[in-house]
């Protein structure tokens, strides 16, 4: 196996178009679960804060879904969402994101200091204005921390979908494995990590933009 070089650079050049398509597919399949996860986690997290009783059962359900191995869930979803389709990958990943984002939303809202909340009430803010203008903005750092974890995990997990016919850059791992060919595997790993790094950086940037007051105080 040592006769095969670790990287055949010319392979990358020749295959760039198909690598690009895989990259595109990968981006879509990692982005949608996070967005959907956030859109669902916000109201759900709010509900858990409002009615503390449902937090525990919700988290129990999330715990169970989180412990289901992703590969198995992909396989089991095939009869429902189809073989080699994006939905088969997106649905489970959205659930995994939820498992991280709901606690993030709950903890984020919980991190609002009482005196701040009371000041808002004293100033005459309605619950909705309080939520949108005071509580959510303060919750942003915690929520975004959760979002970063969800994003990075999603991007990494998409590749497992290759084992059931749709895995974005994960296809490179399968192809490389089948032909004992290192180059596609290494290219795939590098691109996945790069993608995750970019997503992470974008979210950090978003945090800075959304919490200008923390910049003023000199903390992140």
């Amino acid at each position, binding site marked *: 196996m040592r006769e095969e070089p670790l990287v055949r650079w010319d392979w990358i050049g020749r295959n760039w178009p198909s690598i690009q398509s895989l990259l595109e597919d990968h981006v879509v399949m990692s982005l949608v679960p996070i967005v959907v996860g956030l859109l669902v986690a916000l109201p759900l997290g709010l509900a858990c804060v409002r009615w503390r009783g449902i937090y525990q059962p919700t988290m129990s359900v999330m715990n169970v879904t989180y412990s289901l*191995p992703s590969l198995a869930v992909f396989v089991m979803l095939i009869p429902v969402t189809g073989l080699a389709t994006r939905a088969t990958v997106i649905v489970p990943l959205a659930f995994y994101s939820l498992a991280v984002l709901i606690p993030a939303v709950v903890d984020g809202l919980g991190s609002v200091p009482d005196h701040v909340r009371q000041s808002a009430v004293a100033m005459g803010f309605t619950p909705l204005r309080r939520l949108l203008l005071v509580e959510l903005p303060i919750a942003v750092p915690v929520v975004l921390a959760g979002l970063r974890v969800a994003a990075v995990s999603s991007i990494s997990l998409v590749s497992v979908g290759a084992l059931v016919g749709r895995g974005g850059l994960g296809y490179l791992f399968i192809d490389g494995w089948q032909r004992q060919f290192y180059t596609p595997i290494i290219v795939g790993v590098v691109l996945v990590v790069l993608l995750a790094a970019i997503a992470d950086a974008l979210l950090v940037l978003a945090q800075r933009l959304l919490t200008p007051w923390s910049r003023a105080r000199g903390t992140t």
Partner: protein
Amino acid sequence: MNWLVDFFGDPANWSGSDGIPVRLAEHLQFSAVALLLAMLVALPLGLWIGHTGRGALLVVLSANAARALPTLGLLVLVVLLAGLGTDLPVLIPLVALAVPPILVNTYEGVRGVDPDLRDAAYGMGLRGGQVLGRVLVPVALPLILLGLRLAAIQVVATATVAAFVGLGGLGRYVVDGFATNDYPRTLAGAVLVALLALLVQLVFVLIQRLVVSPGVRRRNAVR
């Protein structure tokens, strides 16, 4: 439900090299060894960085980077390079996955200890190492244990991928079930892994009850 009853009720599935006990043992073995190795790396590192405050950037960067590493890609690469002779290849991506939660939570745990406590300890005449061992670690313990727990669940769930390269463990049921269109088998594999993960969680909750001093309050976890 019928499927599960059929699978678990069939005695053939409880004996032999593809039986549940063997696969369970293999899976536990990968997971335990990977977790142990990750602890050996991440605990000292997290404690040291949390205590001295140096290299905090390293913690953040490496934690995020390690979480981004695609398990399947690493697994396949390592097996191609090292061969199938041993089970060692599967450990590398699993350790890479387990280190971030342990490292980050240990670091956050130590760093998050009330500065007054730390000052009081120094004030009492304790030296660096003693402050760490007798004050910081006990107070940080809930978060450290949480990090270990999160890592353990991740590892147990992800070890299923090892079956793709021909290794054993509960992932065998998932992969073989898919290859033979035998959904009951895949479902059984998923259920077994989930149960194992939940069991692991229970064990950690128990450990927490036993080991954490009642005076220490729980703080928020970092996943």
